[in-house]
Every structure is written in C-alpha cells, then in structure tokens.
C-alpha cells in the first residue's frame, strides 16, 4: 500500500480545485473528507451513476467538418489569410467540443496546405488508455488547398 499509482483506492486528503463537475452537478470542493466521495466524483462509473466517458468518433467528425466548412468553405488558398483560417478552424472545433460537456481534455491540430503537387504525410502516436481515449482525423480539400484536422480526446 502507499506509493503513487493510477490508484482508485488511495485518494485522500485535500483535493485541489480542478473544476470538475461532480456526479451531483456540484463543483469539486477543496475540502474532501471521505475517500469514497472523491473516488465517486472522479470516476463516476464506479459508483453506479452511469456517465458517458468514451470518445465518440462520429460526433467529433461532424463537428470538425462543420468547422472546416464554415471557416474555409468556398475560399481559394490565400497566403495572407491562411493563418487566420487555421486559427478559426481550430478554435471553432475546440469550442464545439467543449460544449459537449464531457470529462475530456482536448487537443485539436489543423494543417492547411496549398495544392502544388507536393506530398504530405501525417502520423500520430499516443500513449493513453484505449478504452476511454480516442482521436478523429478529417481530410478535406477543395481545388486549391488541402486541410487536415486531428482532434484527440483524453479522459480525465
């Protein structure tokens, strides 16, 4: 017993304000007196009240597609605007993802490349929990550019 683990058991003592919405809907308080209550709040599925804690790829894929269409839908590649476009795709995607209200941390990346006959390859490698975490990559193109958006969701 003791030592640091990914432990669900030895949760004790003072809990920092990490801003999680607990099973009852109240924010996690800074003083927790009981181990089991903290475990319940951080891992609601162990307590009986079911909570959606897996990454749903289809939902995220739709969010990404809408964000890309909205930001660069009918436009041709323009060097002066591409910075603004990548930023708005990424911000729009992230804000829609956070509105889902799931207990996830999100990472969203976007690459926009001018069509020039050149090749582009992306790969990602992740060290996480396969049952709860996931990612979604969407490739979009029009006549003048390619856009590749990846969204990663890591359960808290």
């Amino acid at each position, binding site marked *: 017993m003791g030592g640091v683990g990914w432990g669900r058991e030895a949760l004790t003592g003072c809990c920092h304000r990490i801003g999680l919405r607990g099973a009852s809907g109240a924010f996690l308080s800074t003083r927790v007196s009981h181990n089991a209550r903290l475990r319940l709040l951080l891992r609601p599925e162990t307590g009986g009240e079911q909570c959606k804690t897996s990454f749903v790829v289809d939902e995220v894929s739709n969010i990404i597609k809408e964000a890309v269409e909205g930001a660069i839908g009918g436009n041709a590649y323009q060097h002066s605007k591409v910075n603004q476009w990548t930023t708005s795709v990424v911000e729009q995607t992230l804000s829609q993802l956070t509105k889902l209200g799931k207990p996830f941390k999100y990472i969203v990346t976007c690459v926009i490349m001018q069509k*020039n006959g050149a090749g582009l390859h992306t790969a990602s490698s992740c060290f996480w929990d396969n049952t709860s975490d996931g990612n979604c990559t969407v490739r979009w193109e029009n006549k003048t550019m390619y856009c590749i958006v990846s969204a990663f969701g890591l359960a808290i």
Partner: protein
Amino acid sequence: MEEPLGLASPGDTYSLRPAFRHRFRSSIVKECIHAILKENLANVQYNPEETPQLTRSLSDAIKDRLKEEGFHRYKMVVQVVIGEQRGEGVNMAARCFWDADTDNYAQDVFMNDSLFCVVAAFGCFYY
C-alpha cells in the same frame, strides 16, 4: 478519525498535481525530439513510397523516447507531419482544452532541401 496534519502516513501518497521535476517540461521534450529528428532525417530525400513508413516510425520512436524520460502519470500524444518541399505554402495550428497548470506541449521543425518535418508532442496529466 482525522489524521494529525504534517505526519506522513501510507494513505497520503496520492497527489493530484505533479511535482516540478515530474512535469512535462517543454525544453527537455524539445531536445529529445530534436535529437531524434537530426538522427533520422539528416540526409533523407522525400520519397512517396517510403515517407509514410518513415513518418509512422518517427512518431513511434519519439513516443517511446518520451516514455523512457519518465513522465509519470502523463498521457502523451505525438504528431509528426512530413511534407515535400516544393515551394508550397503550409500552415499548422493547434489549440488545447486542458489544465494549463499540469499539461504542456513541445514542438520542433526540421528542414532539409527536399522535405520539412514538424513534430508536436502534447502531455496531459492523468489525475
């Protein structure tokens, strides 16, 4: 039964914040990435058949290297983008929704005459 404050006991060892030396530090990670890129891409030419495999193996190599660094309780995501250099315009952006106190990222770019490579490594603390 309240335990007296200040006394270490076997039950008080689960921390919800990493200690400073265990944080996902950008500078350390960037050096690891830079070393791996220099080693693997120094004289490589862009090749449409081999580059996909190279991209995948690079991302795995970087992920394994970061695991060896010993960032305890960190979930990590490594993304590698390799493109051919033909004068085209490329722009890459990333945004994250996380706990800025514990989570961080590192990125590096490598270029030679025929290709460019961008690596972004993200680390998220698992509470």
